[in-house]
């Protein structure tokens, strides 16, 4: 039974992503033909082989681990801080008046510029990167949470109150579930920016991590290794996004908007 159902699925994937396979195919041909210097564009097959080499015999796992450690600590802390902050902004006009302009101003400022300052404070090890990731991902999560919490329909709160819910509990029972879709949206953006932030910061100044791997490989012109690093980074980005989307689909199965 299984064999039968896999073939149409493979066919479907091919036809949907034909442009991607096409590009990989052309890539392999161009690379092997020698039109482009093999250092500049190593063949896809060679990259795949090297990927497994580094995975089992090299330090790929180590570097990936370092990057992921930094990213998830930064993103996790940012979420823990930003969601309550966003909700507080929606509930208290004092907090809102203070934070809202700061958030608005912070948005167009390229926060990578603050990375050197973070290095001044925390050195080149993990903490400066975690701090950068924290700052980068906090912004979208706070803003999204705030936007969700502030528009909670009054009549829903009134309904809950007339059914005996006390003021204090309204936050947990009504506002939080309704803000959840927005929190998810903000987290998705946070996921993307924290990915960018961790790799960028590692490429600029780091002794370990996938970004560092990329830079150290480029210095000795090992382009295959560079592509392995890119491949790993891409894979992680896709993986997290897919996991995120399926979690969101489950958690928000009640939400009327199909494409959120």
């Amino acid at each position: 039974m299984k064999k039968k159902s896999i073939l149409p699925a493979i066919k479907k994937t091919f036809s949907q992503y034909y442009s991607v396979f096409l590009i990989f195919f052309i890539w392999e041909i161009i690379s092997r033909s020698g039109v482009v210097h093999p250092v500049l564009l190593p063949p896809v097959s060679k990259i795949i082989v090297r990927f497994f080499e580094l995975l089992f015999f090299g330090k790929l796992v180590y570097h990936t681990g370092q990057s992921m450690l930094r990213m998830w600590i930064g993103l996790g802390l940012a979420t823990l801080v930003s969601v309550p902050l966003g909700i507080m902004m929606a509930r208290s006009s004092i907090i809102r008046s203070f934070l809202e302009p700061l958030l608005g101003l912070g948005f167009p400022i390229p926060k990578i510029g603050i990375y050197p300052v973070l290095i001044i404070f925390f050195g080149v090890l993990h903490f400066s990167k975690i701090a950068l990731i924290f700052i980068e991902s906090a912004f979208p999560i706070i803003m999204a949470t705030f936007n969700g919490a502030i528009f909670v329909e009054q009549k829903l709160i009134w309904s809950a109150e007339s059914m005996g819910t006390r003021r204090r509990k309204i936050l947990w029972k009504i506002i939080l579930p309704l803000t959840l879709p927005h929190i998810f949206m903000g987290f998705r953006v946070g996921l993307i920016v924290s990915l960018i932030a961790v790799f960028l910061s590692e490429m600029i100044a780091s002794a370990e991590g996938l970004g560092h791997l990329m830079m150290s490989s480029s210095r000795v012109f090992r382009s295959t290794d560079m592509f392995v690093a890119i491949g790993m980074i891409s894979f992680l980005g896709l993986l997290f996004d897919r996991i995120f989307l399926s979690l969101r689909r489950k958690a928000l199965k009640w939400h009327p908007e199909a494409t959120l």
Partner: protein
Amino acid sequence: MLKENRIFYTVLSTSIIFALWEGLSRTGIITSEILPPFTTSFYGSLQLIASDEFSKHLLASSYRWAIGFSISLVLSIPIGIYMARSKRVYNFFDPLLTLTYPVPKAAMIPILMLWMGAGDLSKVTVIVIGCFIPLVISAYHGAQGVETSIIWSAKAMGMGERAVLFRIILPASLPTIFSGIRMALAISLIVVLGSEMIARQSGLGYYLFNSLEMGLYQTTYSVLIIISGIGLFLDAIFSLIMRKVLVWA
């Protein structure tokens, strides 16, 4: 919050932050090597802007950014609009976009530097790559969201395909496109700065990181202030343009 209130609170909040900065530094809670006072740093910024050496780098960054950003606008927006009009174009680009969406384009910087050297070309290219997705997606959604009833009305009044495109679809999708441009603006600044910090040859990013490596921390803060100022300035100008163009929205 009313408009007057908003300006008031913005000034208030930023003043508090600057005062905090100044206070922490001057009182020595954080040593002034690590955190020079705000006033000193700001004064340093002014001096930098006046200096020739810095202006050279500032110009280099501006030049790269302007070219890269313009190219990405001219390239991405038409593709996005075309995707909304032609199913075949859509089917070609959509899987590429979905796959590359969660992938940080910053990872391309070293490879591009390998191919194109550490000069302007690689930076311009990475700006184009970085801004491509948000611009294409917003252009697509903008063009797609134009109500079919409006398009049909126009056609019933005898408008040809080209006229419909330029006089109906384009104006109607502008609000969405503009918000995409705003996001691409922020991304382009990060990309140009980041790539300069990696390449370490010239430009604001180089200058910033170089001051760190040389231990000239005061300069680091001064450059940071300038960079932030530029980001805010560009965004403000863009918002102004947006408001003028979209006065009907």
